[in-house]
């Protein structure tokens, strides 16, 4: 049955002739058992079969052939085309009319059915394709999928997706070619022409009124009009959206040769249109992400200005007031009182200095101007470097507890020391005055740890992530304690550069412990 269908489809006329001849050969031995009109009915059956399997034109051929053979073999006198009985002429005429009518009708039905089937397959394919487009795929995923579909639909030897950049120049995004080489320059030329003129090239014109997708059909010209030197049989389908051409879908010659038919190109146009819509959506999405980023940068800038102006101006105001007070002639300042006032000036200055440092750090980290330069350092040196940067007056509050010996670690010492310094500075600010701050370090399998522990109010569980964000200040602290809200953000950034982790945990009965853990990278190589 399969072979019959295949024959009927690919070699309709041969199938028609073979069917009628086979039937005739089968009928001949029984020529005398039935009346001649009954043979006519059997021939009609064969014509109907041909029409059903091979379509209108082969059926008409079969009808004609059956007409002749019936006349030749079954109407007396046998084995001639002569007809004796004039009533037989009528039979012959009626047979021809009925056979032709039946062949035409049945054939048409079959063709409609085939067309409906093809459409259904197209629809299923398009549905699948559009489902993939709606899901959040990347452009290269879609390009790959598209190339697969094109190959399946057309069996083309090569195909390519050419996407237009900002200036409308085409960039080859993906191609599948059997020779795996680059596209010919003539292809690129025509594609560029198609892009510039917003037209398809090489698409067959739509002639049939029944074709309902004429709406989405791109305006197309032939290859020579598009600047090709010779006639070609490949396709350039524009990826058209309402206000822009996203690119060109190039489909090479079909593997079986010959020009593309409307029915081949229709699904291609449909996929191309869907791809265009997808690309447009991607482009708009990217634009909106960019706009979001700009808005966020704007918001940060204004937060920065308000936070920083507060952080810088408060100590300056306080210093100005204190100094002004001391400079007044109307009060006799005894030595102790003056020293007390000056100590507060010193504190304000330390605060100013650390704010400025935090700002400079963050600016450098974010502009990526502070590439980590990792080298081997004694972990103890890193810890002490951070320790030594804390203003001397505060340093006495820090209790350092290190194991007897610490290993060499692979870090950017300046950055790492800054991160630790920020943790220490935080602990000193948030712990109650004169409370101790613990600085510790340890080495475990594959990582080293440094932690800073304070006796402050601790961090609420819901804030333990957020406190590492820029400008976020813990709720318990917001107004009362100084700080730019940058120290932890800088620390996190630094630790991230080193592939490590930073987190905060509770220590009982009260206080917070900030821990950094950074993977170690073996030991320094041979020296």
């Amino acid at each position: 049955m399969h072979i019959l269908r295949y024959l009927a489809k690919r070699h309709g006329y041969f199938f028609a002739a073979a069917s009628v001849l086979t039937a005739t050969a089968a009928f001949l031995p029984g020529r005398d058992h039935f009346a001649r009109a009954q043979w006519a009915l059997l021939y009609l059956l064969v014509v109907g079969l041909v029409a059903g399997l091979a379509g209108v034109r082969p059926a008409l051929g079969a009808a004609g052939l059956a007409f002749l053979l019936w006349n030749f073999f079954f109407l007396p006198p046998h084995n001639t085309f002569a007809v004796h009985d004039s009533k037989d002429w009528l039979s012959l005429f009626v047979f021809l009319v009925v056979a032709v009518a039946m062949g035409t009708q049945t054939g048409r039905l079959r063709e409609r059915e085939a067309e409906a089937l093809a459409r259904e397959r197209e629809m299923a394919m398009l549905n699948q394709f559009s489902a993939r487009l709606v899901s959040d795929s990347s452009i290269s995923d879609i390009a790959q999928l598209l190339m697969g579909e094109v190959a399946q639909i057309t069996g083309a030897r090569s195909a390519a997706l050419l996407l237009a950049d900002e200036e409308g120049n085409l960039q080859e995004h993906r191609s599948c070619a059997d020779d795996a080489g680059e596209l010919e320059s003539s292809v690129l030329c025509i594609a560029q022409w198609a892009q510039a003129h917003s037209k398809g090239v090489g698409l067959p014109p739509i002639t049939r009124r029944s074709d309902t997708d004429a709406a989405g059909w791109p305006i197309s010209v032939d290859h020579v009009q598009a600047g090709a030197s010779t006639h070609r049989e490949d396709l350039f389908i524009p990826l058209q959206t309402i206000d822009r051409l996203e690119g060109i879908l190039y489909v090479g010659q079909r593997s079986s040769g010959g020009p593309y038919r409307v029915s081949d190109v229709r699904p291609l146009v449909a996929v191309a249109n869907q791809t265009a819509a997808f690309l447009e959506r991607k482009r708009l999405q990217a634009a909106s992400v960019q706009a979001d980023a700009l808005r966020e940068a704007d918001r940060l800038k204004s937060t920065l200005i308000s936070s920083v102006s507060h952080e810088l101006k408060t100590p300056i105001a306080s210093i100005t007031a204190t100094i002004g007070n001391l400079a007044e002639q109307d009060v006799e300042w005894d030595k102790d009182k003056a020293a007390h006032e000056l100590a507060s000036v010193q504190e304000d200055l330390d605060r100013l200095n650390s704010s400025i440092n935090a700002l400079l750090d963050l600016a450098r980290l974010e502009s990526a101007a502070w590439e980590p330069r990792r080298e081997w350092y004694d972990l103890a040196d890193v810890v002490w470097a951070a320790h030594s940067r804390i203003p001397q007056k505060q340093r006495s509050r820090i209790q350092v507890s290190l194991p007897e010996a610490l290993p060499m670690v692979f870090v950017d010492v300046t950055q790492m020391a800054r991160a630790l310094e920020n943790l220490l500075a935080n602990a000193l600010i948030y712990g109650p005055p004169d409370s101790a701050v613990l600085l510790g370090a340890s080495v475990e399998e594959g990582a080293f740890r440094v932690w800073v522990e304070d006796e402050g109010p601790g961090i609420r569980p819901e804030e333990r992530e957020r406190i590492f964000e820029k400008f976020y200040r813990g709720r318990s602290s917001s107004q009362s304690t100084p700080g730019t809200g940058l120290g932890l953000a800088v620390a996190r950034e630094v630790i991230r550069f080193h592939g490590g982790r930073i987190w905060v945990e509770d220590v009982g009965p009260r206080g917070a412990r900030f821990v950094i853990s950074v993977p170690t990278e073996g030991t320094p190589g041979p020296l």
Partner: protein
Amino acid sequence: MSAPEKRPHVLVVDDEEQIRRALRSILTARGYDVALAASGAEAIECSLNRLPDLMILDVAMPEMTGIEVCRELRNWFEGPILMLSVISGDTDIVAALDTGADDYLTKPFSTSELLARIRALLRRTASRVTPPPTIHAGDLEIDIARRTVKRAGQEIELTRMEFDILSYLAQNADRVLTSRMILEKVWGPEYAEDAQTLRVHVSHLRKKIEPHPSSPRHILTETGVGFRFASSEPSD
């Protein structure tokens, strides 16, 4: 501090008026004889007129930088030079120390630290005779000639490199030696850039001579610059 018989003469070189003013007030109050210079050229002029006992030199100055001044001065000036910089671990500081400066401070610095450094530098030049063949620091005893090191009377075995590093540092006690200086001295000029190697050796050395290697008392790190040998226990 203690009123010396002869007041030490200190030349302050900085292009910032405020810093010059502050340093003059700090130093004159402690009995130093202070001269001020606002530029490198002026500094050289001043020191030719009257040789200072110590010079405080800003690294970042327009026209002639602190490094250039330092290089120029070292042709004939042997007194201690203390450099000032804005960024800690600044490459300029390292360059200045390499060209012969003795110590450095990062702005903003505390007054007490500045005074301590100045005292240490002046003490060192005052006792500048041939370095003693045996150096004592805490319970450490370094015999330069015999190439032996004892801790609390107990001899410690050091590799050749380790001893060379230790003796070079100890002979320049309280002075910052840049990694480059140590590398050139111990390994040779072609190894001058390999600070990493030096740090590894120092780490080993500390494990042998320091009571608590992770909290060193003798060999102190100047992050991003080099090392300093502390002859006495640190004050802070």
